Structure formats: C-alpha cells, structure tokens
C-alpha cells in the first residue's frame, strides 16, 4: 500500500508543481486564450455562445444533454458486456469489472480534480489549473465558455462520462491477464496524466490543438486515438496471454457481445450528437452521420470478411459497426450523411485489415483495441480533414490540404503523447506492483483469482 501511496503522490506533486510554475503567467494566458478562441475556427461549442447573448438555461438543450449524459454512462456497462462476451468464460467477471469499476474510480477523480485539469482555466495551453478542484466554481449556471444554454455541472458530468469510458476501452487490449489492484492504480494515473492533458489540448479553452484549429467533434483524438495508442503500449509492456497462439481462445458468449454493441451504438448517439451540446440542427446532423457511419462500416467489414474468409460473421458485423462508430466520431459534427457513409466504409475496411495485420505481428491485442480504436480513430481524424464542410457546421472548417495537415499533426501529437506516457507509466506500475496476475491465477481465470466469484453456475 505504501507503494501505491508513493506513486499517486508522485503524480499529484508533478501536476501541482507544474501548476505552480505556470501560475504567474496565467493572467496573461487567459487573455491570450480569449483572443485565440475568437480568431481560431473553434468547435461546436462556440456556435451557441454567438446565438445566445446572456447565458440562460434552455429546457430543450438541457433535456437533451441530460439524456445524452445518461446515454454515455450506459456505454461503459455496454462495453463491459461487449468485452465480457468476447473473453473466455473464466474471465468474464474480471473483464467486466475493469469497465464497471471505472464508473466508481473516475467519477470521484473527475469531481476531485480531473475536470479541473481537463477543462479548468488554462495553464500554458497544455493543462487546466486546479482551480476547479472539488467542483469549486462549477455551478448550476451555464459557463458560456463551453455552453451557454445548459448548467455548467451538466457539461461537467457529460464530460465525466467520456472520461469513464476512455480508459475502460483500453482494457480490451490486456484482457484476461491484468492484476486488478494494479489496474486501479493504472486507471487513476492514466486518467490524470494522459487523458486530462489530452482533453485539455483538444477541447479545453486555451488548449493548443483547439487553438490550432484541429477538429475533433466527439473524441477521435481524445477518446479513440488515446485509448488505442495506450493499448498498444500496454500490450508491449504486459506481453501475450499464456497459451496465446497455442490454444484457441474463442469468445464465450456472442449474444452478450451483440447486446454490448447495441448499448454502445445507442449510447453513441448521446456521445456524438450530444457533443453538439444543444438540441438543434447540429445535433441532428451528428446523429445522422453517426448512424450512417456505423451502418456502412458494419457492411464493409461483413462483406470484406465474407469475400476473404468465406463467411459473413456476426462478430465481424458487430466489429464493423464499432469501427464505423469510432471512425465517424471526430467527423460527426462536420460532415454530410453521404460523407459519413464514405468515412464509415473506410473505417470498416481499414480496421478490418488492421486487425488482420496484428495477427502477423504476433501482438496479443486480445480484443483488438489498437486495430479498432487506434486505427479507426486515426482514419476518422484524417478523413475529417477531407470531408469537413462548413455547410454542416459553420463553426467547423472546410476540408482542405491545410486542414488535413492540422489533423495529421494533432493526431500525431496525440499518438506520441499517449504512447510514450502510457508506456512509461505502465513500466513503473509494473515495477512497483506487477501488471500481470500469477500464471496459476491466469490459468484459473480472473473471476476466481481476482474476485472470488464465478460468472455462471448453470
């Protein structure tokens, strides 16, 4: 327990230190930020602030965002079911628990300091200050910096749901072998030093990618590229499962996986359309793009697999739908339905090949987080640079080579940062606590060894 304490402290101290060092410049920064966000082609959120002069809670927007927050919450147990169905029976609870527990851990971290780090007053364009710790100053009136028609706390909790889901996505990569205790430590640290800064860069007022004009409507960079890249780091650090490539490890319950996909798809409407932060045309457009992206990727994956492997599998269709949802995420608020179809198809195909390619590299990305979220997120981020149009979202930009370059740069930065920091973080956690369960525990399964329970007793 001492070690846990030490590690956590270390991170906190570094963050605080950085905050203090930068503290003096903050006043100046703030002004800069205001200028920046006025001039730069800022995202979704700005749109509202132009419309509504005096921020007043709008019942329609608030109704929408409340339900969207609930929908995004549902994605985390949806993910638990999605992943849970794909592992072997003996690991179902261990796998589901890794997602579910994020609903506890991140919730607390987020209100204590996470939200402040990610969205709080900018410090050096890279992180939020700790001024909003314990939701200090995060009240029930709208904060026009983010949205002028819904309570600030509602924006905070909507974002919390993203922060809960993102690290849970990573768990698919190291499924069936991660020690629960170490996972909890990883969860807290990863959120603190990978997610919060990244979210700040892209969405926080003053964040450098936001200022640069990088477009990420609902989290292609922050959610999918971050989780996918960190998953890659995790695979490299933790190694393959015992028996990988020797034993077959088929999914133990595809109906669960279908159910999980359904809940994810359903929740994704909240995720993407909700990222409009208001119930208007932009939300409708994002909703349509999301659905079309998912549907077309579903077909793309299914048909290419049918062609190459001889059968149209259900898991393929489910994976395709997911890949489409991932790919459309950064683009959803900037593209037309027909563009969404192309992005979906691209997402489905590229992810299909990525997943197959991994096989050859010998990495044990158990549930294909890199191939689906990492690659899918990247595809989406880049294609946003091509398909974006101000006809759909006047606060966005038009696809161009310049935009594409910005998108590529933003993606690269996200990839680099997530990979390096996650890699180091995991190495440290491994040294201090060990990432893997014992061989015997792995054989017995995570359910019994980590949680003292069995999934089923038929």
């Amino acid at each position, binding site marked *: 327990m001492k070690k846990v304490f030490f590690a956590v402290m270390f991170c906190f101290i570094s963050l605080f230190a950085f905050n203090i060092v930068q503290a003096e410049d903050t006043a100046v920064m703030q002004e800069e930020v205001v200028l920046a966000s006025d001039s730069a082609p800022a995202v979704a959120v700005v749109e509202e602030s132009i419309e509504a002069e005096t921020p007043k809670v709008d019942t329609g927007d608030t109704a929408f965002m409340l339900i969207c927050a609930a929908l995004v919450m549902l994605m985390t147990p949806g993910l638990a079911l999605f992943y849970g169905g794909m592992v072997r029976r003996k690991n179902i609870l261990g796998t589901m628990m890794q997602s579910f527990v994020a609903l506890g851990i991140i919730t607390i971290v987020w209100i204590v300091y996470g939200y402040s780090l990610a969205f709080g007053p900018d410090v050096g364009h890279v992180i939020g200050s700790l001024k909003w710790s314990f939701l200090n100053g995060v009240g029930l009136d709208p904060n026009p910096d983010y949205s002028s028609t819904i309570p600030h706390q509602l924006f905070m909790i909507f974002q919390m749901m993203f922060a809960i889901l993102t690290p849970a996505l990573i768990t698919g990569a190291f499924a069936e072998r991660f020690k629960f205790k170490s996972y909890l430590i990883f969860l807290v640290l990863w959120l603190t030093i990978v997610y919060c800064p990244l979210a700040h860069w892209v969405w926080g007022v003053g964040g450098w990618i936001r200022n640069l004009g990088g477009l990420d409507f609902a989290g292609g960079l922050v959610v999918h590229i971050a989780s996918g890249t960190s998953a890659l780091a995790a695979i490299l650090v933790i190694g393959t499962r015992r028996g990988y490539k020797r034993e077959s490890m*088929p999914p133990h319950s595809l109906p669960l996986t279908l159910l999980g996909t359904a809940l994810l798809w359903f929740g994704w409407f909240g995720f993407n359309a909700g990222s409009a932060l208001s119930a208007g045309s932009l939300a409708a457009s994002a909703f349509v793009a999301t659905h079309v992206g998912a549907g077309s990727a579903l077909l793309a994956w299914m048909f290419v*697999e049918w062609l190459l*492997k001889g059968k149209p*599998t259900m*898991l*393929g269709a489910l994976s395709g739908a997911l890949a489409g949802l991932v790919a459309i995420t950064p683009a959803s608020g900037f593209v037309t339905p027909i563009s969404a179809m192309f992005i979906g198809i691209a997402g489905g195909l590229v992810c299909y090949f990525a997943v197959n390619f991994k*096989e050859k590299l010998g990495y044990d990305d158990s549930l294909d987080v890199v191939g689906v979220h990492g690659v899918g997120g990247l595809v989406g981020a880049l294609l946003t640079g091509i398909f974006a149009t101000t006809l759909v979202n006047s606060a966005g930009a038009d696809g161009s080579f310049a935009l594409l370059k910005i998108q590529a740069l933003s993606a690269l930065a996200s990839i680099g940062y997530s990979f390096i920091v996650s890699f180091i973080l995991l190495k440290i956690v491994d040294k201090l606590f060990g990432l893997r369960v014992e061989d015997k525990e792995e054989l017995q399964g995570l359910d019994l060894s980590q949680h003292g329970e069995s999934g089923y007793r038929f």
Partner: protein
Amino acid sequence: MKKVSAIIKPYMVEDVKNALKEIGVNGLTKSNVEGFGKQGGHKEIYRSKEYCVQFVVKAKIEVIVQDEMVDKVINVIIKTTRSGEIGDGKIFVYPVERVIRIRTGEEGEKAI
C-alpha cells in the same frame, strides 16, 4: 447387462431416441460432451481469425440394456446416425454389474 455408449452428433439425439424407443428401449441418458477425433479441424472465425476448434460439440447417449439387446441397439444407432462422413461418432460397450431402480428397489432386468 451392458452399457452401450454412443458419441454422436447432437442433432441426431432426437432421432436416435425415437428409433431406440421403437425397438423397445425405455430409458436412456444423454449428456453434452465435446469430442476430439479425426473430425478435428472444424473452423470458426472470430474477428477474422480462424480458430481450429479441435473439440467438436457432441452428444453422448448411454443406454443400459440386457445383453441380447446390445446388437440391436448398436444397429439402430448406426442406421440412424451414419452419414458416412468423418465425425459420425463411435459406440462403446461396457459391462454393467448391477442395475437398481431407486423408486422400487427392483434390481436387474426388471430395473431397466
């Protein structure tokens, strides 16, 4: 008395049961098993990865019958389940020393 135990394809169970019923078999016990054998090598595809599922889902049927019934039972099972393809399964015959019906305490032939 003998136990005739057959490892067959699961979807054959109903047919076998009905066929055995017709020749006068009044009881049998079925269980779900997985078999590894010549048939080994059926493929499943998950996430575009082909799994050589070496264990195939099979049903095991166990019938305890009097010695003179054994051949009949074997023939019926073969007739019902043979498709000529690998994986049709096997039949094993074991000796049984005693049979008791719990309900009545009857032993031997009467208990079958």
